[in-house]
């Protein structure tokens, strides 16, 4: 991320009438909003995670039974939870990896100028403009047993193919991941393309003049120069994909059974289908700690890398 030096101009005049520094006064609305929506819930979630509160039990949340760390103990042995974690990591790795490869391949097609280039870029980034729920909706129809995907397979295979993708425990994850990849490869593409366009052009020319072949130029010169952009893109997409919910909810709701449950879907089902709020709060806490610590671990090397 941008690490430009912050300009400082605070002086004795940087104060408002009632004595709060104007800088502090200016960040206050944003800060309070974030505290309200992040800090308060985090405190509540810590309390809830130590209880077995269920809204259906008729006890208010602040009077719920305190069960110490039993929720965490149960989670540790809850295969459904652990599977959802592993599945989410799998989905992140596969989706983000494929997105990056596709984006790189696509961007390489756009390095020179040609008449309908702008139009082509506009069409290719269309998916990322769509409301995610609608994109998932479209994939829901595409992968229906009587949808066009099965139709295409039938035509190619030469016999009727009416596979029910979304109710198969193994294959149901495919449409979900495809929807995710379809929607977000354009973003990766746009980032990588921007990176390519900002490369120092003369280094490429110099390599060319030295007689290097296009693949060598790509791998030895361009990709190393592109690395910072790729890291930013991977990071942003990984964080976003880790939260994946919309396509799972629309396409399978985590089913069949729990075959496509990601972390977000597991927690949604736990809290809003089974109403095990205390238990899910514990899971939420684990995820929060996990995410924050991963990000903090990554922040330093990335900042150094970017600088």
């Amino acid at each position, binding site marked *: 991320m941008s690490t430009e030096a912050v300009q400082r101009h605070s002086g004795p005049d940087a104060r408002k009438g009632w004595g709060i520094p104007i800088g502090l006064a200016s960040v206050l609305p944003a800060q309070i909003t974030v505290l309200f929506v992040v800090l308060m819930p985090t405190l509540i979630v810590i309390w809830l995670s130590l209880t077995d509160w269920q809204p259906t039990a008729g006890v208010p949340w602040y009077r719920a039974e305190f069960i110490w760390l039993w929720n965490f103990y149960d989670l540790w042995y809850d295969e459904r939870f652990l599977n959802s974690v592993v599945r989410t990591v799998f989905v992140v790795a596969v989706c983000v990896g494929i997105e990056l490869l596709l984006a790189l391949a696509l961007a390489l097609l756009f390095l020179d100028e040609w008449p309908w280039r702008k139009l082509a870029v506009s069409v290719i980034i269309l998916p990322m403009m769509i409301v995610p729920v609608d994109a998932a909706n479209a994939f829901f129809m595409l992968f229906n047993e009587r949808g066009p995907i099965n139709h295409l397979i039938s035509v190619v295979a030469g016999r009727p193919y009416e596979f029910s993708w979304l109710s198969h425990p193994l294959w149901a994850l495919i449409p979900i991941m495809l929807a995710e990849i379809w929607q977000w490869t354009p973003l990766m593409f746009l980032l990588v393309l921007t990176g390519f366009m900002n490369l120092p052009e*003369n280094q490429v020319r110099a390599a*060319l*003049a030295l*007689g*290097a072949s296009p693949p060598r130029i790509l791998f*030895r*010169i361009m990709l*190393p*120069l592109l690395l910072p952009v790729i890291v930013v893109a991977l990071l942003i997409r990984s964080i976003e994909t880790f939260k994946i919910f919309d396509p799972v909810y629309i396409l399978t709701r985590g089913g069949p059974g729990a075959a496509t449950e990601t972390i977000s879907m597991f927690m949604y089902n736990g809290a809003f289908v089974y109403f095990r709020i205390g238990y899910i709060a514990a899971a939420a806490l684990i995820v929060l700690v996990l995410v924050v610590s991963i990000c903090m671990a990554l922040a330093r090397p990335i900042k150094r890398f970017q600088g």
Partner: protein
Amino acid sequence: MTARLELIDIHKRFEDTAAVNGISLALAPGEFFSLLGPSGCGKSTTLAMVAGFLEPDGGEIRVEGRSILHLPPQARRIGLVFQDYAVFSKLTVAENLAFGLEVRRVRRAERRRLVHELAQRLALTSILGRRGGSLNMSEMQRVALARVLITNPELLLLDEPMSNLDAEVRASLRGELKRIQQDLRQTVLYVTHDQVEAMSMSDRIAVMREGAILQVASPDEIFRAPAHRFVAEFIGDPPINMLPATVEGDGSSRIARLPANWILPLGPGELAEGAYLLGIRPHELMLSAASGTGTAAGIVRFLENLGAEHVLHVELGDMLIRVSARPGSARIGEGVNLRTQSWQGLLFDARTGNRVPVRALGAAA
């Protein structure tokens, strides 16, 4: 390695402007040759055609007598150094140097040997492990040079390699570049708009304007005997004075009548009476204690202090004339007398701008 380069009647048009309009050049092996001219004169276009990034509309380019026009850039044995040096910033210096060899599938051991050999000659040994992005300008210049030299090019092309630099760095890099070139006896085609660079490093210079070459000559000759008023005005710092002159008389009593009743006697030469432009460099003028024939009276209007000398701007009639003078010899507002001092006798046709050969008869003579 070193080779002969010939350009024969090269033409290149962009849309409806002629960027290069029929230029012919021949570079001797080992020669440091500069293309000098203002931006838009076609010098970079010429270089791009030699490098193979542009195709000429007409003409012929030969290296060692063989045409290279049909070859793509990478097949021409040409080393190209860019304006920004384009050192591969993510590769180490050693990797930068080895890049061209890797491409040519030179064996690893051989690569190492060549890299170390060249690094030694260009004083790069101590920075071989550093990344291209962390180098200073002098190091980048040497890496950029070494990177192309290691591939043993027949010809080295340099495209304004110093235009992004501070004056101070530029001065030291000029010396360095010339030393390396002489050391390796490399044929160099150097493109620049900076007359100081061209003058200080070149064996010969081609001064270009509007796609055509006005003069090809050694720096000395370019300065002493410019073929065209444009060349005279482009070369020299402080710049030459151009005065309208009327030539009168004939034979031995020929004179040039200049503004402010200044009259200069001229030597013999084929010269018709009429209007000319007379070029006098600031160093060819001096302040004279006495007034009289051959001198002109004027008033000092500005003064440029260059430290070792002052450049006086002397008002002469309705013109300002630059005169180099010792510090302290005149003050602003002071009236002075000017006379020539070892004047070269540059006289240009007022219409065509071409120089008219005439022997000078300085006031001292």
